């Protein structure tokens, strides 16, 4: 009886020790994984740039947008919504860069997700944004481009080079330096 008890104690202790060890190892492994992801800009070197499918759809004002008609120009495609705080924060930057780069062969294009056209147009007019946006309440355009590059959050900005390939993406609100660096690398002077 005593022996049996002792055996159980030994077993339970051994199991507990191994469990603790396993838990510590697992914690270390998972925390290491989490730290590895830093930065929100992804750049694709020329020759390794994924081709963008031809995105088509209606704009907020009802006109038709066809991405392939922009071939030969660098396209900044911004995924946004008037409900999204970081999108509202980066909007003045995008409006300003649109003006600054329009003479340099760069066009800006928006994809308004999870929104209504009325709310979106009130926002763009108040921010002085003049470039068109897809009316994409159901994330259809996002789903199409997600097959090629991850657009996993709103806002996301995708820079497409003159040949219709992705030069880089910025996840989250873009900064001036992030976006201008990508534009330069997309072969824009």
């Amino acid at each position, binding site marked *: 009886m005593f022996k049996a008890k002792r055996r159980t104690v030994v077993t339970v202790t051994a199991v507990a020790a191994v469990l603790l060890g396993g838990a510590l190892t697992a914690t270390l492994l998972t925390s290491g994984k989490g730290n590895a992801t830093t930065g929100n800009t992804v750049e694709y070197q020329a020759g390794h740039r994924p081709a963008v499918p031809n995105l088509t759809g209606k704009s907020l004002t009802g006109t038709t947008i066809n991405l392939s008609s922009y071939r030969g120009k660098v396209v900044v495609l911004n995924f946004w919504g008037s409900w999204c705080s970081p999108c*509202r924060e980066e909007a003045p930057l995008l409006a300003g860069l649109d003006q600054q780069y329009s003479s340099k062969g760069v066009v800006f294009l928006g994809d308004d997700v999870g929104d209504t056209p009325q709310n979106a147009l009130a926002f763009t007019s108040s921010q002085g944004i003049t470039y068109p946006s897809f009316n994409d309440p159901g*994330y259809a355009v996002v789903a199409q481009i997600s097959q090629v590059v991850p657009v996993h959050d709103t806002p996301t900005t995708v820079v497409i080079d003159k040949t219709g390939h992705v030069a880089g993406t910025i996840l989250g609100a873009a900064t001036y330096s992030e976006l201008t660096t990508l534009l330069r690398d997309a072969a824009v002077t």
Partner: protein
Amino acid sequence: MTDVHAPQSQPESAAVEDDAARSFALDQTGTAEGGSRRTSRPPAANAGWLRWGWRQLTSMRTALILLFLLALGSIPGSVLPQQGSDPGAVQQYYASHPALAPWLNHLGLFNVFAAPWFAAIYLLLFASLVGCVLPRAFRLVGAARTPPPRAPRNLARLPHSSTYSSALSPDAVVAGAAAVLGGQRFRLRCSEADAKDHWVSAEKGYLREVGNLLFHLALLGVLLSIAAGGLFGYKANKLLVEGQSFNDTVAALDEYHPGRLVSGNDLAPFSLTLNKFTANYIDSGESRGQPSNFDANVTYTSSPGAKPGTYNVRINDPLAVDSLKVYLIGHGYAPEFKVTDAKGNVYNETPPFIPANTSTFESDGVVKLPDASLGFMGVFEPTAFSAGGTLMSIFPAADAPAVSLIGYSGNLGMNDGVPQSVYQLDTTGMTKLSGSPHLLTPGQTWTLPNGKGSITFVGVKQWVSMAITYDPGQVPALVCAMLAIAGLLLSFFVRRRRVFVRAVPAASGTGSVVTVGGLTRSDASGGFEEEFAELAAEISASEKAKP
């Protein structure tokens, strides 16, 4: 992991059973009981520790303790709110237990099934099972190839035995008995042709071991299936108001919990539109207000350009698209507003309101219009009733809807980039438009003071919350669970039993004395005694049938 019973025997017969009985025991004790008994004392030598640890880990006791711990560990998963299934409830728990909640969080108790300690139990159980099953599988294969043992010397001392006299010679008796036993699909081993000794050993019931092995392998299969589901599957939630649609992409999902080996590009390219949601409630009797039916009518396409289909998603009747399942997990009301701001811009908003009371569906929500510098906090009553000046809902259906609004104007704080909840209004930079809430019924308009514009309560829509799950391990897990049960039944109901027949020349000089002995390991379901008696009778009868 099934019970191990040595054959029951009288003390004095133990010696006689010798190899027959002992080999029965040896098949078994190597794995579980004998294994841990032999190694339970930690050895002094260093190299022995590893061996000892492995034996401990793969012993049946450890496996059972781990299985128990696994069950114990999942209790907090059902008692405490879980981040994965109900993050709102976790927030509430934080609010009501500010001292305790951070500690529980450190222990991973708000996300039990992803906690490292839970994974540790799981992996150890897996290692324990593998360590138990693999050697066992090899042993079974070995046992299946081994012929039955030689017949013991004194069959009369076996638990079951009978003796009779035969007119035939010993070798003829044994040959006849072998034919009878072989006909009953016993595995046979006979005495050498030229030996003086005439006997036959027969063994049956190998299916018991097969069932046992099947059970263990299927248990491994269940664990592997669950692991595959966790690694390659994903779970997501999406709230949709009637008329809204969405494509299955990470950005569109409200919540997304991918498995370890899932990337965002692996999501199935399906899209879904909520056409109409219908909820029926019992309107009389004791269970008045209880839901009787939920029905979400959706249109879906499995991939862009595919032919659209329609489906009525109900509770426990999910929509299956490709290998995905879309479940209906919640619903509520979304009042529809038309807002005009001071400049004359018009906005349409249909914000989902969250039920504060799930039996009357009194719901809370906000209307946020950052570009109109307007915000509203609202309470929605599906069947509004004013009791002594207090507005309440008396029925969950939208029979007499009304919404009570408190208006604010000013900066909503949404331009500084800090993400906000769509269900909350930050009024720190705003001023109240009126002292008391304003009540609206469908079609009514509230003209806001000081020329700030107006808000119209257009009507009521409903929203549903959908869970999208992809679990590649579900079907294999079910199949394995069924195999495990089948294996368990086999190992419960099939007996491993041995029958021996020995014939010696009779003292009179002609004929022989035949002894039939029987031995079974565990006879939990009973019946070997009868089987043995029948067999013995059949063996003695068979020679009389011969001329």
